[in-house]
Every structure is written in C-alpha cells, then in structure tokens.
C-alpha cells in the first residue's frame, strides 16, 4: 500500500477533545486521541489498516473484539500488534507492506 487515503472511515462522536496522540503511517504524521485503540486511531485517520496477504485487497478489521484477527498491523521496529485490542501509544510508527514484518 503506498497511496494514503485522507478519507477517514470512522467518525468520532465522543472524546473529540481528548489530548492528541501523535503517530505515523509510512512516515506520514497523524494524530489520535487519548484512549484510542490502534484500530480506531488509524481508521479515524484513513480508510484501511493493511493489505491482505494473498490478494492484496484492503482490510480494516472486522469484529473489534479480538476474535477475527483481521487487524494485525506492523510497527517499524518489526513488532506486530492486533490493532483493535492494543492501546495507541505516542510515536507509534506503522508500516504497511504487502506481507507481515518484512
């Protein structure tokens, strides 16, 4: 995935004024809010989490409760996290490549 989508999928209705938490995707800066999961932070900023492994179609999680395992994302350090159950931390740097933690 290279092109970044400024279209945000999720809409915030609460916590809009919470402290901003900076993070980046492929070097582009975004900000989430205190109390965001990684998934909500990314999906409130863009419209996808990753590309699927075998057909490279966009994916954005599905269940939000840690069941479908569709929402794994990769950090620049190589660590992979399940976005819907991982709290956002300041300066998290996500990288989106086609597969896993290359």
């Amino acid at each position: 995935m290279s092109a970044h989508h400024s279209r945000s999928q999720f809409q915030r209705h609460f916590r809009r004024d919470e402290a901003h938490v900076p993070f980046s995707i492929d070097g582009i800066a975004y900000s989430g809010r205190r109390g965001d999961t990684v998934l909500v932070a990314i999906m409130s900023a863009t419209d996808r989490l990753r590309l699927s492994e075998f057909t490279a179609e966009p994916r954005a999680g599905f269940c939000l409760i840690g069941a479908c395992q569709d929402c794994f994302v990769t950090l620049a350090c190589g660590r992979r996290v399940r976005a819907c159950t991982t709290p956002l931390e300041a300066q998290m740097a996500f990288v989106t490549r086609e597969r896993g933690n290359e």
Partner: protein
Amino acid sequence: MIRRFSADVAIVGGGLVGSSAALALRKAGLSVILMDKGFCGAQASGVNYGGVRRQGRSVAQLPLSQRAHQIWPRLKELIGIDGEYQRSGHLKLARKPEDFARLEQYAETVKPFGLNLELFTGAMAKTRFPWLSGNVAGASFCPDDGQANPRLVSPAFAKAARDAGAIVLEQTAVHAAVRTSDGFALQAGTDCEITCHFLINSAGAWANKIATDFDEPAPLSRIYPSMVVTEPLALRLPVSLGEEGGGFYCRQVQRGNYIMGGGRGYALIDPDFSRPSTAAALAVMKRATTLFPHLAGAHVIRFWSGTEGQLPDNNPVIGRSGTTPGLFHAFGFCGAGFQVAPAVGAILCDLVTSGETATPIAAFSIERFHNMPPQHNKKKGTHNEMVE
C-alpha cells in the same frame, strides 16, 4: 446386510505408504481394496512437517530414499498435482563443534550415494545463507532435498488410487484378519467382509495389531512430534532446515507461513489423538527467534501434533512376514517416512507382483525382532530422533 469384497490385494491403512502401494498395484493390473479406519492421509502422512529429505538418513535407508527421490518430481503425472513439492535444498545445522564433526563424518560416509552434500563452517554458512543468525558451528547442505505439502500429497495418492480403480473404504477399520487356504479373510467396518490373496499391513502406528495377530509382534511404540506454524510472512527462508540432534527444524511455505517443529507432544485419553506440548512449542519458538531475528515480531497461529510409529533401531519394518506367506508389512518409520513412502509403495508392489525387489531392504525385515525380549516393547522414542 453384509458387504462382501474380494481383491488380489487388501491394504490396511491409507497413509502415504498404503495409498502409494495401492496406486502402484493398480497400475500393475492387480485389483486392490484399500481401507482406512479414518480418512486416507489424515494421520501421520497428512499432518507431518513436510520434509522431503535424504540427508541425515542411515546408510541402510539411502537406497530406498534414492528410489523415492526419483518419484517425487513425477507427482503431477502420478497423482495430478505437484503437492507443492520443491527441491529447495535441505540445510543441516550444527550448534556445537562436535555436532559439526558428526556432519563432516556423515558426509564422508554417504559419499558413494551421491547426495552432493556441501559443508560450511559457521562463518561460511552465514555468508552463504545470510538470513541465518545465532550460534551455528557449521552446516551441511543437500541442494536436491526439499519439501512438500503433506496435507495435499497424501490424500491425493489415495484419490489417484481410487481413480485408477482401487476400492477405497474410509471410516472402515479392519478388526480381524485370518489366513485362509488361498489368502486372507478380513472383517472391517460395521459390515464388510473381504477376501484377498495378499495382505499389506501399512497401518502406521497401529500396525502392531495385525503383526501380533500373525504371531510376530514388533517393539513398536508411538511418538507425537510437536509442530508450530506462524502467520504468513514475507518470503525469506528458501531452504528446509534442521538442527543436528533433531531439536529444531523449520521451513517456509510459498504462502509465507513458517512451519517449525521440535520436541514431542503427548497422547490424549483416546491415544489416536495427540496434542502438541507447550514446553516443546515454546522451545521451538525461542530457537526460531535466535536463528531468524527477522521473526521477532511475528505470531504463531497454531500448534499440532501427529501419531507416528517408532522402532528401537530407528529403522522401519518393510518386507514379507516371517510367519505368514502373502502378508507384507510396512510400518514404523520413526518420524521420517514421508520422503520414503512413495518408494515403499513401489517396493510393496514389487514384492506382491514378483516376490522380490531390486531395492535393498534386508535391514528392515520384521524378523530382526523375532525372539526379542518383551521389555524392548516398552522403549520410548527419545528426544534425539530426527523428525522431518
């Protein structure tokens, strides 16, 4: 109502051994009935690690293994799929200098068989295989060994046998087999009676039942190798790799998952089902992260295990019965029967059709266990056997 079948050959056990025998025998023109108590290729043959390797085998097994080596590239023609077979190369790693000394000695011993092993000292190994890290004292590489997908290969042999005209009865356990005047009579499933001229016992870890029924029990025990698979990851590991001593082996499939094994699982109350052990899986995971630092962020998604027959001298039983004419055994592959199985099927066909085979199998005779003291039956597989 009783269902009656008769065939030239009845085969008990539809693993890769029984299924490849069924296919070979059908091609030789004999009528065949193949029975499995569960589904063909669902036991060891379908759940193993998928290593298709000659390197590391005992000298006794090498002619058999070389014969199998000729069959693997022909899968497409034989069973309609290539089974993801690839000659990726097999890399044997030595953790300690004394392990490397053993690899060097092995390479010397098997030179006449033409495995073309390449030896590397630690530093050279890391230059040649740059994705490798951690403590590696040296390595031995067999470029033409490889890997395949057991889930696909083994059931496909059974299907090919059926397509070639074999009668395949799944969920049909053979309960009893007796010698008759002109062959054998079998009872199987809830309602099957089978008569045949020849009987093949390829019942894997369960094969001792029939061997015992014909008065030649073998000291067969069970092992449950423990396996781990990761999520799909970028392609990086081009070879199948195993550590001397058998504590760790690993390959990456084309879809990106790393399959790794080491250590043993355990049987459930129903000993036909086994579980991987957490201690073994964690040890394997730890070793993987030291050998491949690029996996540090990855996840494992599933553990599993399978049931395999083990014999005390780490060699299988292959050949004619010592007590009963017309009966042939092929079982107890000690964690390494996947690669050789297609050749074992071919040999069983030789034996049935002509009474002999060009491949040396004397070392595998069941008669080596005749008159063995019974306590040997209890010997358990140790951690050191090489599964892959």
